[in-house]
């Protein structure tokens, strides 16, 4: 009887101890330098797309984005421009909608097709069905960019964060974070600004 109580008390204590998480918890998801997972997600043409399908790519511009978020919308043309510029240099854009259409009906698969057609998307626009991919990457909002470089060890995360420093006025942009990172990678140089933060819409799980 006494041992049972002791075991019970121990379990209770252990449980209580783990209940108090530290304020500065390590954020889930990738850090720069991590190897990013590949995936097999449905594109708007109903075909499945994976990073490994792009045999000639030197890397990828993975962008978590969606239909409804005004921040994502503000960047749509710039995302198309990124693809147009860097796809031919080996870095295609791969857009992924991380939202749950049941929680946010404007981010439905059907509306993804409409969006891609309206804005002339030149890249895959995939649905993170089951929402298993975005948590691995650690995306917290839309838009959220992960630039990956293909290496013999896998696709290494080289940049995480915002596309540039001005969502509202393209002419007032001072720093093009994503382009700077890509230009550095293409020259085999170190990316100087590896991580930035941006305001965006939280992901609807």
């Amino acid at each position: 009887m006494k041992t049972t109580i002791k075991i019970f008390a121990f379990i209770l204590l252990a449980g209580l101890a783990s209940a108090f998480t530290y304020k500065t918890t390590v954020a889930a998801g990738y850090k720069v330098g991590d190897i990013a997972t590949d995936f097999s997600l449905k594109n708007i043409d109903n075909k499945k797309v994976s990073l490994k399908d792009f045999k000639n790519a030197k890397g990828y511009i993975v962008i978590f984005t969606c239909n409804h978020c005004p921040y994502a919308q503000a960047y749509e043309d710039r995302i198309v421009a990124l693809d147009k510029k860097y796809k031919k240099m080996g870095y295609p854009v791969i857009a992924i909608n991380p939202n749950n259409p049941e929680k946010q009906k404007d981010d439905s698969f059907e509306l993804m097709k409409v969006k891609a057609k309206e804005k002339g998307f030149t890249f895959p626009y995939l649905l993170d069905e089951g929402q298993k991919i975005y948590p691995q990457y650690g995306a917290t909002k839309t838009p959220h960019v992960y630039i990956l470089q293909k290496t013999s060890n896998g696709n290494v995360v080289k940049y995480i964060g915002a596309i540039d420093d001005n969502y509202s006025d393209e002419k007032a942009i001072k720093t093009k974070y994503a382009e700077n990172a890509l230009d550095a990678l293409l020259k085999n140089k170190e990316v100087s600004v590896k991580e930035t933060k941006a305001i965006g819409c939280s992901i609807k799980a």
Partner: protein
Amino acid sequence: MKRIITLLSMLLIISCKEEEPKPLQIYKAEEVSIKSYDFSGLDYLLKKENDTTYVVNFWATWCVPCVEELPNFEKLNAAYKDKKVKVVLVSIDFPKMVESKLLPFVKKHNLKSEVVHLNDPDANSWINKVDSSWSGAIPATVIYRKDKRNFYEKSFTFEELEKEVNKIL
């Protein structure tokens, strides 16, 4: 010479006094008036040294979970007024949508908490100044009184909000 000294000392006195920052713009529509600040102006609201508990919520009219939790903040603001709790709702609506979306929204919902607007597109330069753990997603809330401060990147029910405010009160 005397005049110069007087003028200079006047300027010195004026600049030494803790002043309210100048908004970039003040948007008005009937009874609704919203001051719009860049981050250096807004920062003043995050560093007050008086005895009030400030609940500063970052939101936008297009952010569904933000709009859903607003009634909880309004309820708190009303219920805790005599306990020196002040809710400040910081909208990060796009500047070009303030007149078309924010002002009508505030009027329609009859928001009683103080609503201010933040206009500072280089978010990377100030997100960490609000809190280093903030990813930039909204809704997000800071609850503070003098040096006691907590930051939350989440939505709140009324009970949760009340509980967190009581930790600082």
